[in-house]
């Protein structure tokens, strides 16, 4: 029966699942708000030009595309950062920066659906617009860590990198653009086998080769930054390393350093990142939970040149780790023969902040007791009053 199917990769969320989602959203919203972030909502679909000018060319195969009757090519938003950069550049150009914005939205990607990978999924995240520098990055990374903590994760890690280390290395290599993008792809996918083969065949000096080969495997504390041979001679790379150093120190002050590791293989797939990037993981799930970083050129694409940084977190994936909320909230069931009395009692309890259901089927006390058997979250109130004459009955 086709009329019982839903499109591939989409989900219905039932009350228990929605409760988990809402609970996480509320906690995150409270946290974001306490740091001064304000919520925005952007359209569910955008022009393809907007999305592509932000994310770079490679994303089209993951987009849901369709046309409007005016001949525009539309796409369901695959993520929020580009839309928010567009929103801020068009509507906030005369405001003072930095601006702090957050969102909780569904996004759409045409991926092969499987566990932890859906075609429609929920993201929440923040964008700190118009602020450059270590303190801004530290704020965003701290909020990322605190969000995971607030949502009930204990054993998570956030991997940090500064992509200028890798990019400057590639620039210095003198490779053509095609080779550069392939190397980048291999480092990102940690395809160490193909990477070492490519490097062997390439005409590069040994120091650069060795450094590139090390990128995907360097992982740990600050000490690993001393292990990149070429960085001493490259000003851009050594600046990037110093920046990472300073962020690490700042994160100590912010109290989240226990969750931070340095991982020079984290490059993030999207082209718009320009500086510090990071990803969050839990050992309980084989997929990443959050990702973000600095994207200083993105807003410029939309006509307002401002530095920016932010992160996004996948709510559906997090729900897999955090699991169901155990306790159901207490609730009342009010029944009785006198409808007016039932309504009055239910309203009285609701005013006290209780969750109150009314028996709308006119059941007897025994019937209601029978229904509630084994459902300990319910408390039954049965009003024995007889109905008055002329009252509307069942």
């Amino acid at each position, binding site marked *: 029966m086709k009329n019982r199917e839903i499109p591939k990769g989409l989900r219905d969320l039932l009350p228990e699942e929605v409760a988990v989602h809402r609970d996480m959203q509320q906690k995150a919203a409270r946290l974001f708000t306490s740091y001064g972030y304000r919520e925005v909502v952007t359209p569910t679909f955008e022009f393809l030009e907007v999305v592509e000018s932000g994310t770079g060319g490679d994303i089209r195969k993951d987009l849901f595309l369709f046309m409007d009757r005016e001949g525009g090519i539309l796409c369901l938003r695959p993520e929020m950062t580009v839309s928010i950069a567009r929103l801020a550049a068009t509507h906030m150009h005369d405001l003072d920066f930095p601006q702090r914005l957050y969102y909780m939205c569904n996004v759409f990607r045409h991926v092969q659906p*499987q*566990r*932890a990978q859906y075609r429609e999924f929920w993201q929440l995240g923040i964008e700190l617009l118009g602020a450059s520098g270590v303190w801004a990055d530290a704020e965003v990374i701290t909020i990322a860590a605190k969000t995971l903590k607030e949502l009930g994760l204990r054993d998570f*890690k956030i*991997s940090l990198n500064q992509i200028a280390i890798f990019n400057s290395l590639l620039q210095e290599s003198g490779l053509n653009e095609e080779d550069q993008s392939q190397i980048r792809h291999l480092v990102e*996918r*940690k*395809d*160490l*086998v*193909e990477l070492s083969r490519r490097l062997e065949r390439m005409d590069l000096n040994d120091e650069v080769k060795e450094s590139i080969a090390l990128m995907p*495997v360097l*992982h*740990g504390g600050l000490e690993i930054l001393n292990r990149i041979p070429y960085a001493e001679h490259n000003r851009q790379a050594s600046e990037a390393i110093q920046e990472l150093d300073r962020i690490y120190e700042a994160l100590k002050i912010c109290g989240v350093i226990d969750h931070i*590791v340095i*991982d020079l293989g984290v490059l993030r797939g999207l082209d718009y990142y320009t500086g510090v990037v990071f990803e969050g*993981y*839990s*050992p*309980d*799930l*084989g*997929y*990443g939970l959050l990702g973000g970083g600095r994207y200083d050129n993105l807003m410029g694409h939309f006509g307002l040149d401002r530095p920016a940084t932010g992160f996004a977190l996948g709510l559906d994936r997090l729900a897999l780790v955090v699991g169901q909320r155990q306790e159901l909230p207490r609730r009342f069931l009010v029944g009785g023969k006198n409808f007016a009395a039932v309504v009055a009692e239910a309203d009285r309890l609701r005013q006290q902040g209780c969750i109150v259901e009314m028996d709308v089927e006119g059941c007897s006390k025994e019937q209601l007791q029978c229904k509630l058997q084994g459902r300990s979250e319910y408390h039954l109130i049965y009003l024995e009053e007889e109905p008055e004459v002329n009252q509307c009955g069942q």
Partner: protein
Amino acid sequence: MASDFLTIALSKGNLLKPTVKMLSLVGLPVEGVDEDSRNMVFTFAEPAVKYIMCRPTDVPTYVEQGAADLGIVGKDVIEEQSKDVFELADLGYGYCRFVVAGPQELQGTPLKGLNYKRAATKFPNVAERFFRSQGLQVEIIKLHGNIELAPIMGLSDIIVDIVSTGRTLRENNLVELFNIMESTTRLICNRVSYRTKHKQIQPLVELMQNTVRSGRMS
């Protein structure tokens, strides 16, 4: 996956014997690890490692989804499935090649001579990607075994298959026309495990690389 155990998915079949040898050479326990055993999971306490026995084609799935941290499987399987896993080391053994093969009449045909032909294969993704990258339109016919039969029975004009010595091709009067790529056994890793269990995984990767370099596997 939440445990401290390092879980490694092993490919049953041809690769198992050399894989067990590799594991023992890098100092991991292998006592009783054997596909004839009825066990599908082998657990060792010291060091804390768990092996799971899988069909080769299932290994990337176990690793991608995090049911195993590491996997040992042929590049041919990885290439066909394009799963999102890290490929950490080339273990060198289990050599084979993806080739385009066909009846002897086709020997010497230029690549463009394959345009609009029909190719039978167990590896539709590899085949499709290869022909496309050469700008060719080739109809792919997915079969599950005995690919050599397809051209004999007129089901296809050519085949895309893996060969190691080429004997099966010769026995069926087929000749190799084009080489697509070479394949050996690889160590693959889950994206998250690589970060959360880096301290266990990275030394193992280096040990395996050194073992391959030292030639002790051959």
